[in-house]
């Protein structure tokens, strides 16, 4: 019962005309405000609202002011184990309706060689099991952040139903993460 009230539901609120709302979830709070600024400034035709959060569940007291969420983005920083764990735990508070094209993962810090590859595999496995797209972003340069924001904006517009003849589900079915079989084997038996 308690879990049910904390769950974030996709269809609890009625959609507003010409509007799109995105929820950025990041435990470290390094990137999400920068992304939010660019997303909001880049789009002039549609009214875009960005909600920032550290983790799910979201505070209950904001429930009334919170608009209908069209896209949930989990930002995972591979440099920190906590970031991966936080994303894993937050995913549980999403209603299953979100996984039909309203969730994506954004990974940063994958370029760094010192990062253990098991974290990346964990995130990959999570994304592929949930049938969500997995995006990679460069957070050190401003160009990288802009590119990531533009990509998210494209997905958001589709997920919010602002693009004719495209739905979030159809986009999701072609972009979702697939774990290659050899990687899966590697993950199952780390010795080989």
């Amino acid at each position: 019962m308690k879990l049910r009230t904390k769950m974030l539901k996709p269809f609890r609120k009625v959609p507003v005309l010409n509007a799109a709302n995105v929820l950025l979830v990041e435990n470290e709070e390094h990137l999400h405000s920068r992304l939010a600024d660019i997303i909001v400034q880049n789009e002039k035709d549609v009214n875009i609202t960005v909600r920032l959060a550290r983790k799910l569940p979201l505070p209950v007291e904001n429930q009334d002011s919170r608009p209908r969420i069209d896209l949930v983005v989990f930002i995972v920083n591979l440099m920190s184990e906590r970031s991966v764990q936080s994303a894993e735990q937050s995913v549980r508070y999403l209603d299953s309706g979100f996984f039909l094209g309203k969730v994506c993962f954004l990974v940063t810090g994958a370029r760094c060689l010192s990062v253990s590859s098991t974290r990346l595999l964990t995130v990959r496995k999570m994304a592929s099991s949930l049938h969500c797209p997995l995006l990679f972003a460069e957070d050190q340069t401003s160009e990288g952040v802009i590119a990531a924001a533009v990509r998210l904006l494209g997905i958001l517009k589709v997920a919010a139903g602002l693009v004719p003849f495209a739905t979030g589900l159809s986009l999701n079915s072609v972009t979702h993460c697939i774990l290659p079989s050899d990687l899966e084997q590697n993950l199952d038996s780390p010795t080989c």
Partner: protein
Amino acid sequence: MSLLFNIVISVVLYVCFTSLNMDDVARTLLQRTLRKIPTRKLEETIKKWSHLSRRQQQSLNYTQSKWILLQKLVSFCEDNELTVRHVSELEMIYCMENPNLGTWKACHLTDAEDDATSLDLMCFKEQFKSHLAELTRNVSIKIKKHENETIWIRIAWGENFIKPNHLKPTYVVHDLQTPYVFICNLSSKNKPLLYQTLVLATKHGSIKDAHLSGRNLHAVRDLLMGNYHQTFPTNHQRPLEEMSPPPTHPNIENEHKEHAEKRQQVACEAFGEGKVPKLETATYTLETRFRGGGSIDTLVDGEKPFRTVVQFASTSLLESLHHCVSSGIADAPVSPLLSSITQKGRNYFVITDKADR
């Protein structure tokens, strides 16, 4: 016969050490000191030192390579017949201007006598010199006043038949009328001598280690004296204009805004805000027993204490801890182990098991 032989040997030794050319010691010290001073600070330091004539100072060209400059300075000092006393003054001037070259340890004077508050510089100087001279021979002391009430003391230690070693001096910094003393580069052998002298000269009952050390003298002093922007815990939320972050786009909203503000406040209460003193390390020596899951059998071994040293290091430790708490990396109610760095003004802690106390 053997007694006579011994005496002869010691006399010979004494002669050997005293016959060491005074200029040699002075020259080595001068060269070492000059080598320590970076070229861009050399001009200013030499000017302050004022043991070179105006003409000599003007003839120095600071754009030349340091090696040539050094040669010239040494020859000038030889012309002026400067002694170790003068050269050690140069070292002292440089050290006073740049007090971040060694590790400073803080000591706490306790049990002040009634007339401790009325102590003046002249009296302290006299007392310090006479008390230390009583305790040990062959020690060279230099006392200077720097910035309003701060006293700087340079001590070069010697022994009965050994001249003071000017290459490894101890520096002591004390503000009159405060119970704190800061000491740099003190060997354990000379520790009791200096402590006793300080206690007597400052008219206090005893002295103890304050368990605080750092490379930045000002930071160590500011932390002990609470001389930084502190925030005191209140039940009230602070006024909005003070807390609110820079305005963002109206369409961006943070779900955990209140939480973030609270964390920020907790961090400020624990570690101060704005410019906090720059501490480099905090060390915790744990002498506790291991408790927890039985999977690690080797650690649960019997009743033996589990000894470990945990050290946090950063260029500015308090700032790092502040950031950890305000960004949510560390848990929001700050552990008293961390917050007591500022509250007690210490950065060395020994944690013992409750049962052992």
